[in-house]
Structure formats: structure tokens, C-alpha cells
């Protein structure tokens, strides 16, 4: 086939234009605005949201247990007076049309059973279906209830509960304010925040990529960690603490206990220990390429008893040396200060 120079120029121009618009679209595809517009378009294609509300109430007494498992949707648990566990589950879905949405909603059921003061709740999906229903839960419980909530996707909030707490999500934030004695609060990709444990139990707070914050915690042992998030422990008073992160920074603020053990380890994150109270301690701090700073009058170990004070290492004691502090970071800085 023969073409004129004009036709060839037109073809080249058209191809260039097509290439440019494709590149533009690819760039836009990564923008939040594009994503939001796409989601809106998708939602319109799916039709308006349909909901179905389910409520169940169990009389359980002042001390009970709640176990709730969910796949997708937010969970809010609130402790208060009273002797009942009240569950409100709201199923949500967008279907191609009303009939499809209703069919999807009805295929998901909320199972709730009570055995001897223990209420077990779970969302049950039909097997082998492409169901898009999410379920939000709002649950009120007597304050003394032990709470165990798990979700694959969705945020969690627990407040006013004085029983033991376990709250775990794969993808979602977890926030808990509790007066209980022990708590385990975890997420894979969300932030985790725990406030107000008070007692002699164990506390575990962790996330893979989110930040981890624990405030006003009094417990026997505290284990806190993240891979890439920051770990902040504020006003914590524990007998043993193990705190770790790979790239996030670590902050520990609070008193030490006599005979207590405190270990803070990071790879590239900075480590800051801000001490209140008067408990003496022995410290072994080291960093490979960062620096160590302290404004405390630490008595250095005598030469020959190990590493003394260098830019990257500090070994010594303060006061009665009754607690032990081990700090290690590979490339981060270490700060030990009075709070």
C-alpha cells in the first residue's frame, strides 16, 4: 500500500497523540483523584448502597466474655453499666440492582450464641460465592467483660472495657482504651493505639507497617513492636519491656522498676529512653554507626569490665543499679534522658 507524505505525517502525529494520552492516563491512574473518581464510577455502576440491620441482646451479668469475628467492616465495642451484651450489626452492599443487593444481604448471616456468660458472634458468608457484603458491628457490653475481637479488614475501637482485651485486625486501625489487666492489640497494616491498662497482666501491642502507641500502661510485661512503624510508649510502668522495630524509631517514657528488665532494639530507628522516678539501673547501650547521648550522671564501668564510654557504646550504672536497660540500634541514635 502506498501513502503520501502528508498521510504518513498524519499517522505519526496520531500515534504520538495516542502514546501521549496513554502515558497521561497511566500517570493519572496513580493519583488519588483518579482512584476516587474510579471508585465513584464503580459505585454508580453498582447502584446505591443497601443495608440490613440485625440486633441481638443477651443477659449475661456484670462479668462476661465477648468473642467477635468479622471479615470486612468496622467494629466498635463500648463498655458500660448494665448486665447485657447488645449487638447491632449493619450489613452493607452495593448490587447491580435492588434484587441482587437484597440477595447478597440475605445470604450473609450473623451468628450469635451465648453459653454460660460467653457470647460468640461471627459473620457467616455463603461458601464459594463472590459476596461483597461488609458488616459493621456496634456492641455494648458490661464494663467487666473480657473482649476478643478479630477482623480481616476494618477498623476497631474498644472503650470502657475493664476485662482482658484482645483486638486484632489484618488491615485496619485498632484503638483501645481499657482499664483491664492484660491486652493484646495487633494489626498488620494499620496503626495500633492502646491506652489505660492497669494491673499485673501482660500487654502486647504490635503492627507490621503501622505505628504503635501505648499510653498510661501499668503491667507486668510489655512487648511492643513494628517492622516499619514507630513505637511510642508513654507513661508506661512495667516490670519487663521488650520493644523493637526495624526501621521505625522507639520511644520509651516512664519509670523503671527495681529488678526490672528493659530491652529496646532497632535497626535504623533512633531509640529514646526518657526516665521518670528514682530507680537506679545498669545500662548497656550500643549503636554501630549512630551516636549515644545522655544527660544522666551515669557511672561508667571501669576499664577492663567491658566497653566503657565511646561514641557508639555506653556501659555503666546509675544509683543502685537495680534495673537493667539494654539498648541496641544498628544505625540509629540513642538518647537516655531524665523526663
Amino acid at each position, binding site marked *: 500500500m502506498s501513502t503520501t507524505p502528508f498521510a504518513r505525517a498524519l499517522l505519526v502525529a496520531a500515534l504520538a497523540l495516542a502514546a501521549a494520552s496513554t502515558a497521561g492516563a497511566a500517570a493519572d491512574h496513580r493519583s488519588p483523584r483518579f482512584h476516587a473518581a474510579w471508585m465513584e464510577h464503580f459505585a454508580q455502576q453498582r447502584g446505591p448502597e443497601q443495608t440490613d440491620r440485625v440486633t441481638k441482646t443477651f443477659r449475661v451479668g456484670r462479668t462476661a466474655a465477648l468473642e467477635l*469475628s*468479622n*471479615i470486612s467492616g468496622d467494629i466498635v465495642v463500648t463498655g458500660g453499666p448494665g448486665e447485657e451484651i447488645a449487638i447491632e450489626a449493619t450489613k452493607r452492599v452495593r448490587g447491580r440492582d435492588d434484587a441482587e443487593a437484597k440477595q447478597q444481604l440475605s445470604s450473609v448471616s450473623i451468628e450469635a450464641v451465648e453459653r454460660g456468660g460467653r457470647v460468640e458472634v*461471627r*459473620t457467616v*458468608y455463603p*461458601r464459594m460465592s463472590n459476596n461483597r457484603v461488609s458488616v459493621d458491628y456496634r456492641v455494648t457490653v458490661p464494663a467487666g467483660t473480657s473482649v476478643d475481637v*478479630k477482623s*480481616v*479488614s476494618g477498623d476497631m475501637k474498644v472503650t470502657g472495657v475493664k476485662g482482658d482485651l*484482645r483486638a*486484632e*485486625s*489484618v*488491615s485496619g486501625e485498632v484503638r483501645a482504651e481499657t482499664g483491664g489487666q492484660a491486652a*493484646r492489640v*495487633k*494489626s*498488620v*497494616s494499620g496503626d495500633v493505639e492502646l491506652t489505660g491498662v492497669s494491673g499485673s497482666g501482660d500487654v502486647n501491642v*504490635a*503492627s*507490621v*507497617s503501622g505505628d504503635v502507641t501505648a499510653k498510661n500502661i501499668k503491667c507486668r510485661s510489655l512487648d511492643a*513492636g*513494628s*517492622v*516499619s512503624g514507630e513505637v511510642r510508649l508513654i507513661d508506661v510502668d512495667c516490670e519487663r519491656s521488650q520493644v523493637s522495630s*526495624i*526501621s521505625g524509631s522507639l520511644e520509651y517514657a516512664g519509670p523503671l522498676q527495681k*529488678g526490672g*528488665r528493659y*530491652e529496646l*532494639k532497632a*535497626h*535504623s530507628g533512633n531509640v529514646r529512653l526518657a526516665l521518670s522516678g528514682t530507680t537506679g539501673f*545498669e545500662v*548497656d547501650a*550500643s*549503636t*554501630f*554507626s549512630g551516636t549515644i547521648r545522655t544527660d544522666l550522671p551515669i557511672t561508667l564501668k571501669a576499664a577492663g*569490665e*567491658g*566497653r566503657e564510654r565511646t561514641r557508639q557504646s555506653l556501659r555503666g550504672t546509675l544509683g543502685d*543499679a*537495680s*534495673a*537493667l536497660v*539494654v539498648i*541496641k540500634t*544498628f*544505625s540509629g541514635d540513642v538518647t537516655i534522658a531524665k523526663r
Partner: protein
Amino acid sequence: MGVRPGLTMDCKDATEAIGALLDRTLTPGDQAALDDHMRTCASCRVLAADLRRMHESARSLPRVKPPETLWPRIASALDAEIRSSPRRWFGVSPWMLAAAATLLLAVGGTLLLLRPSTMFRPSRPAATATQTAGGGAAGAELAQSVESELREAEQHYERAIAGLEQIAKAEQGTLDPQVAATLQKNLAVIDQAIRESRAALQSQPASELAQESLFEALRRKVGLLQETIGLINEMRKGNQAGTARIIQNLNKS
């Protein structure tokens, strides 16, 4: 360990002394101080009994070295399985995970013996390969032996990681894309830590901190990969309870 003459032993000193007792390096003076302390301290008595039991159990274990041909056999079996039937991975996962777990146990055991926790041995001097040598032939031999055991342990980790990575990649489509991206991003963070620790060890082979940092990062990577695989498995089965159980173990190691 050296309790100051005339002073009584506290729990921290006692913890050190118990370690020294098990290592048979406790001096008679410290032994007497430890005995005095344990007469009045139940928690240290329990600790001593526990550690003695662990010590005796560890000593009675046979020192098992996997045959040289084990890993190549596992690796080739993995290759063949994934090539021939990538979608049937979960059908054979217990076997593969068991193999990986065996390797990890071997590594864990080796490291446990090689690197006692700093929490129990705070005053241990910074022993380095060159310092340990101290000029003597026996010291040099010991340093070489420690170095070679560390290298061996690292190789076990690397093999375990390679196997786990292969498994995780084969079925990662099962995970929610956002969760998969999060896990990948964090594995990359750990990989960076491994690279940095290795580079540090090349420039300062005797650095205890660089060694610790490398093994800590390897351990975290193995833990995250294991949990990633567990999460894939549970999500594939749609098992909520199992998924949640996996989450609770995430980041633990």
C-alpha cells in the same frame, strides 16, 4: 561476675551468677553469696531450677547436622512441585513447611547455643573473634570455630528464607492486594537491614553488634515470611478464626 565483697547479692546479680553457675565459672565466694540470696528469694530459686532443667535438656540433645544433600533435595522438590502444579501448592504445604520448620529449628537451636540472651548476660565483655584469640593457638581455633558456626547458621537462615519466599510468591495472589503490598514493603525493609548488617560485617567482621543485627533481621524475615504464608493459607480457606490466629503471631518473632 564479681559481687562486691561485703555486699549481698540482688536479683540482677543472682541472675548473672546462675548463668555462671551453669557455665561452671562461678567463684566459691559468689557461690556462697548466691546460696544466701536464693535462701530468701523464691523467684531466683525457680529461675535457677528452670535454667538448670533447660541446660540439662540441651546438653542431652544429640548434635544433629542435616545431611549435605537435604537442602538440594528440598529445593528441587519445591521447584518441581511449583512448576508442575502452581495452583495445588496448598496440597503439599505441610510437607514444605515442615521442611522449612526443621531448618529453622536447627538454626534456632544453633543460635540459642551460640548467642545467649544479653538480658541474662549483661556484663559479658564484648568478645570478638580477634580478642578471643588472645594470641594463643587454642583461642584462634575457638574464634575460627565460632566464625564458621555463625556462617553455617546464616546459611541455614538463607536456605530457609529462599524456600519460604518461593512458597509465598507462588500464591501471593490469594492475599488482598493492599495487605500483600504491605507485607512486600516490609520484607524489603528487612532486606535493607540485612544488606546493611552484611556490609558492616565485611568492614568490621568482629563487630558483635553487626552480627546481632544481621541475625535479628534474618530472624524477623523468617518470622514475617512464615506468617505471610500462614495468612495466605487461612485467607484461601476463608477461615476467619485461623486468620486471626495468624495475626496474633505476626511480628512476634
